[in-house]
């Protein structure tokens, strides 16, 4: 037993898979401790806030200010102000004025600005440009140049009783506040999703639910498969025929279609995470049955089973002590694969909108479903779906690696 474990942990593949899986499990345990709270809490009002650190504007106004004169402050401000559309418009103006734009890099803000300042003329009338378009360029020019001139923002407060507007102070361009002094700062490493929920927090919670679903589905499928396989393989005869008949029927009906039909007929209200897991398990026992059966048939004719019979042992005892231990390693491997495919099946179901109830728990599949419904993939909000895909891939990759590693240890024909 000890030696077997040593061999298992000698297998590079198993260790790699195991490490990934343990890392994911640790994340699931540790992250909620650092960042407690309901993973489905809507913190944002809009949809798809970008990943990053959010600083409360309100709090920063009343925080202690320091004056910092930074040489590149204006430049940075212009850079962050100039969107890609602005840059395209600037190049369009150069083209309309017949100024060569060869070698101009739109991402090189300094070069673009220098060129703009040298060439822009408010009075110029590029051919084929309407007045509205010319006014757009005037505004663009103003916003670019005004960044350089000293301008001061004033902050006012409206007295709710009198409606009087009171001047609260000025904000200079050189005013800075320390982020540490601001009362409310929120880091969203993966931004928010369409409902304004913290994606990372949701992901960690979804990971747990999905592994739970896979685990339950795996247990259900393995137990059914093991029981039927043992019965069919060991008893043989008519029992074998009946079980194999049922198994063959389940084999030819695509289990996913069955899964869709069952989950659909259950209805939205009945579908908790565990229910979905059990349904997945109920439709995926077929291959375990078949392989356990064939293993048992080859074991049934082994001499130690014959000797056990000759010693007068009961059927139950023979199955439990002379058959089960021999297929245990195989069943564990099948179980790992079932867990992995259970997680994938949940993702597929949820993507079709047949997953667990949406109000209770997030699952990896549901997160993908939401991201897809709100067109995250079209509007460039990669953070809403890409980490989910990576997580699903990571979980099944780690499990398959573990399975291959175990296979190399337990299957003598694969040993090198």
């Amino acid at each position: 037993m000890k030696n077997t474990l040593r061999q298992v942990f000698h297998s590079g593949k198993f260790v790699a898979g195991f490490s990934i899986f343990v890392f994911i499990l640790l994340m699931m345990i540790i992250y909620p401790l650092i960042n407690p709270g309901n993973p489905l809490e809507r913190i944002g009002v809009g949809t798809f806030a970008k990943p990053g650190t959010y600083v409360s504007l309100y709090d920063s106004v009343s925080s202690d200010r320091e004056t910092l004169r930074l040489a590149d402050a204006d430049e940075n401000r212009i850079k962050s102000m100039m969107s890609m559309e602005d840059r395209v418009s600037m190049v369009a103006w150069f083209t309309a004025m017949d100024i060569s734009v060869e070698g101009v890099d739109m991402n090189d803000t300094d070069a673009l600005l220098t060129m703009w300042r040298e060439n822009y003329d408010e009075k110029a009338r590029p051919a084929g440009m309407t007045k509205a378009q010319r006014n757009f360029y005037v505004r663009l020019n103003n916003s670019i140049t005004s960044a350089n001139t000293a301008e001061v923002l004033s902050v006012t407060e409206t007295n709710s009783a009198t409606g009087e507007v009171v001047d609260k102070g000025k904000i200079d361009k050189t005013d800075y506040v320390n982020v540490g002094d601001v009362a409310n700062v929120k880091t969203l490493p993966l931004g928010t999703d369409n409902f304004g929920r913290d994606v990372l927090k949701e992901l960690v919670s979804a990971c747990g639910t999905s592994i739970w679903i896979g685990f339950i589905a795996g247990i259900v499928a393995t137990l059914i498969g093991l029981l039927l396989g043992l019965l069919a393989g060991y008893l043989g005869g008519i029992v074998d025929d009946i079980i194999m008949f049922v198994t063959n029927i389940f084999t030819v009906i695509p289990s996913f279609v069955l899964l869709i039909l069952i989950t659909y007929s259950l209805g939205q209200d009945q579908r908790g995470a565990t229910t979905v897991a059990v349904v997945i398990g109920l439709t995926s026992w077929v291959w375990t049955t078949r392989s356990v059966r064939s293993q048992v048939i080859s074991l049934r004719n082994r001499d130690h089973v014959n000797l056990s019979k000759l010693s007068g042992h009961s059927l139950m005892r023979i199955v439990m002590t002379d058959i089960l231990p021999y297929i245990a390693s195989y069943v564990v491997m099948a179980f790992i694969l079932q867990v992995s495919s259970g997680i994938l099946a949940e993702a597929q179901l949820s993507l079709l909108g047949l997953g667990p109830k949406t109000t209770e728990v997030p699952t990896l599949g549901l997160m993908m479903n939401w991201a897809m419904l709100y067109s995250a993939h079209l509007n460039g909000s990669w953070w809403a779906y890409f980490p989910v895909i990576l997580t699903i891939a990571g979980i099944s990759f780690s499990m398959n690696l573990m399975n291959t590693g175990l296979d190399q240890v337990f299957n003598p024909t694969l040993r090198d």
Partner: protein
Amino acid sequence: MSSENKKLDTRPLCLSGKGVTKVFGTGNKANVAVDHVDFEFHEGEFVSIVGESGSGKTTLSKMLLGLLNVTEGQIDFQGKPRDISSRSKKNEYWKGIQAIFQDPFSSFNVFHKIDAVLLDCIAMRGGRNLPKEEKIRLMTEACSFVNLKYAELTNKYPFELSGGQMQRLMIARIFLLKPKILLADEPTSMIDACSRATILDMLLQLRDEVGMTVIFITHDIGLAYYISDSVYIMEHGKFVERGTADDVILRPQAEYTKRLINDVPKIYEAWDLSTVG
């Protein structure tokens, strides 16, 4: 030799069969593995059943052991028709007949320690409630019968032994169970030549000292000749020749027996390669 055989023939029958047949499958897929064979095994006799692969000797041995149902025919055990219709009757029958199989490596449950195998035999003989010292004494006795040391085996797993040692442990098991009949299904074919003699000696000892009837199943006609009192030659599910070992091997009558003996390499006579095919 022949006078000795006459003596054997007067001994009571231990296991006999009439028209024993086994058919696998039905209809046009039916495959007759054993075809109406008759046999008489006497008490204390060493019988060999010789056949090549596919001759049905393993099927016959499974039927003799009661692990396979007989399609047709009757087997008598100690003069009475054998009754293995229920589990308790089967258990009773298996106290009278036990087996050693070909592959010692697959004869043990690799998850059980050697002690468990031997203790199981003691329990089967009704010694479940014996004091611990008595059990150890019995196990030590059985191990020393097969030239093994119990003290070295205790708490070991079967796979820590060599093939020859495992097969000897199987004989120790038989020694503990003391059945009337021992069926040995090619017990030496996977064992090195130099351990083979030990195993054969022990089988003979079981016959001589415990009085067991030994049914020895083999494909090696030389081995059958060396060890047995009487020999049955099996071809395609039928016995083509039976008799004392000297009669069958030195004066074979059936064509098949002649061919078998002719095709085995010899060392004292020249091995005639010209009469091939």
